[in-house]
């Protein structure tokens, strides 16, 4: 949660300082484009790295960095639609990533492990956490009908609107890669085989669940009516650019110069379909018998233990192999360069990042104060 604060900081900084300078500079391709590609590459690279993590917290961490990449990219667009997208994305990301961190924290708290291969099948013991993570990853992946899609939609419309075609396709690619780790997150923790030592694990503590609920409710509200958030953001953006990025064709349909999207209709369709099909499934045909979790079609042999039939380690090894040239050989030099720069910056930054959350809050407060001072000064 705290990690999202800088985004607002960035937004504020860019709004106050950069826009006037960058936007006015004619042919400001260089700076904005550079920032855009930097954001895009961050989104892609970090997402890819998240896919190969064996540790759930690391996965979420990489994911977060990747998501920030989108926001940075959207910011760099310097258009009203782009800024709407960036801010919507930031808020939305705050919600689902917070939800995911809370839920995963609950799992780690109860099981004491945070490697994917060490858990599994927890849906039977922690269904509430599972639903939280499920909602979280659907939102994160941007799959309709949850709120994440609106963010992606806004981003792509903004990118196209700006004419950054390659970045659009590249971001589509990157966001699909996100599915990989999303699935892994939910599968390796909650689905598949429950380990023997976790048979007695209890549901996450209720304060945690309550906090998750506090995140879930806004996500669901946003899913049905993204307007709730988009409209205030429009005001903000209009404040900066003078024109709104998104218009509302009806109460629920958002339109841009490129496309349209009716979130409520979307949600209604999905809900109706799922309900109807569930009814069909339950009523038609023979009544299914529930079988033991280890009672699987196993080539005619007996599954030895939950451990040995849970596919969790090195989940995307073929994908890793496919990207091996990218991850290692060819662009090592480039990435080394990037790493050097980033590390340089990070080293500088590390003096401030003490690792103490309260310090960060202090920084934030200070930052806002400075910002306010800046604003007052104008």
């Amino acid at each position, binding site marked *: 949660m705290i990690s999202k604060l800088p985004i607002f900081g960035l937004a504020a900084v860019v709004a106050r300082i950069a826009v006037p300078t960058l936007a006015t500079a004619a042919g400001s391709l260089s700076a904005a484009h550079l920032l855009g590609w930097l954001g895009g590459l961050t989104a892609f690279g970090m997402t890819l790295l998240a896919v190969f993590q*064996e540790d759930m917290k690391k996965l979420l961490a990489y994911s977060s960095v990747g998501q920030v990449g989108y926001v940075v990219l959207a910011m760099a667009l310097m258009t009203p639609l782009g800024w709407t997208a960036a801010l919507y994305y930031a808020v939305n990301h705050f919600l689902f990533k917070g939800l995911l961190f809370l839920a995963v924290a609950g799992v*780690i708290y109860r099981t*004491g*492990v*945070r*490697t994917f*291969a*060490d858990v599994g099948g927890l849906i039977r013991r922690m269904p509430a956490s599972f639903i939280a993570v499920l909602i979280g990853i659907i939102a994160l992946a941007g799959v309709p009908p949850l709120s994440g899609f609106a963010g992606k939609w806004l981003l792509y419309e903004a990118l196209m609107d700006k004419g950054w075609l390659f970045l659009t396709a590249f971001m589509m690619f990157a966001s699909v890669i996100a599915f990989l780790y999303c699935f892994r997150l939910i599968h390796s923790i909650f689905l598949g085989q429950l380990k023997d030592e976790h048979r007695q694990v209890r549901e996450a503590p209720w304060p945690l669940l309550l906090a998750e609920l506090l995140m879930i409710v806004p996500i669901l509200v946003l899913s049905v009516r993204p307007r709730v958030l988009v409209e205030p953001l429009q005001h903000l953006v209009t404040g900066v650019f003078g024109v709104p990025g998104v218009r509302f064709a009806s109460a629920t349909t958002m339109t841009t110069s490129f496309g349209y999207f009716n979130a409520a209709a979307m949600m209604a369709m999905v809900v109706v379909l799922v309900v109807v099909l569930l009814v069909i499934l339950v009523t038609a045909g023979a009544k299914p018998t529930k079988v033991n979790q280890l009672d699987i079609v*196993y*080539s*005619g*042999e007996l*599954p*030895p233990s939950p*451990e*040995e*039939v*849970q*596919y*969790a*380690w*090195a*989940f995307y*090894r*073929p994908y*890793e*192999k496919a990207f091996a040239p990218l991850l290692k050989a060819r662009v090592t030099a480039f990435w080394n360069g990037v790493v050097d720069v980033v590390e340089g910056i990070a080293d500088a930054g590390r003096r401030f990042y003490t690792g103490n959350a309260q310090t960060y809050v202090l920084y934030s407060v200070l930052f806002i104060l400075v910002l306010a001072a800046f604003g007052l000064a104008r």
Partner: protein
Amino acid sequence: MTTETSELRRRVQLWFGPQHPGITGNMSVQAWLEGDTLTAGVTHVGYLHRGFEKLMERRRFIQSFPIVCRICVPEPDTNEYLLAAGLDELSGLAAEVPQRGRWIRTLVLEMSRLQMNLMTLGGHIGAMAMGAAPNWLIALRDLVLDRFEELTGGRIYHMFITYGGVRRDLPEGFAERMEANFRTIEEKLPLVDNVIFDSSVFRKRAIGVGVVPEEWVDEMSLSGPIVRAMGIPRDVRKDFPYEKYPELDFEVVTTTGSDIYARAWIRRQEIAQSMDLIRQIFRKMPEGPYCAKLPNMLTWTIPPGQTYVRAEATRGEMGYYVVTDGSDKIRRVHVRAPSYVHGVALLERMIPGTNIADLAPLMVSLQVCPPEMER
């Protein structure tokens, strides 16, 4: 909080077989998967163990022939021939086997090699989910099976070669019908070449995959196409000629690479070779009786003795060690089956590091015939 993940949890245990479309018969491979790579594999046999060798000790000589063909279902004739050759040698009947009988035996052996190679060649690409070529090759194999049906009365279990010769003479017009089949096969084979050896996907999947190192050849007593794919011209038909092979004109097919592609290539060449040999056989076969005068099957006894006979199956060197004790039953038979070496020892050694997707093509290219392993 544990940070180390145990070996047990890193890997997944998968069973290929006994009920698995990727297994080449009634066996299973218990494999451990990490990511997409198999780290270890153990073969399990015994799913069709009928104790062929033991069964033979309880049967009269002639009664063993319906049994041995089951030792390798797709290629039964090598087994029939080897048992017949062993008994011929021990009983002294070998001198009485008529020339035509020997030619027909050679014909049957070569037809059997032909049809087995047709099937296995299709298996190479079938294990990679290309449906057309295996279907064609199975259809072409069926043409050979049609001839087998005509000659022996059965398509799969021929039970045709016995001691003393063979059970029937060639039917009228057999060679012509075989030639017509060969023309069909030769007409279709270029198509097969196109989709197998000229297929970019097959080349990507097969070249450099499943390489058997040359050092293993003598260490593990490998034989057959596996060895010939390394460039070693090892072939029982040439090295220890039997029946009418010395009178036939052929060269041992070899290539280099020792990978799945090379072994498929060897089989493709041996298909052509078999057809050539069968044509030669038809040209050279004399008229005459096809079977020696057989003793009464119920009372025949063979004097004590032991012998080792061998023949080239499509999988490699196949051998029978036959012992008789003067009674009307075999004392002991030991079957030296190439699949045992290739399908158990070699396969287990090759599994670590193999991609899960390559296991089925690898097994096909090693040509594992499970009943041979458990006789």
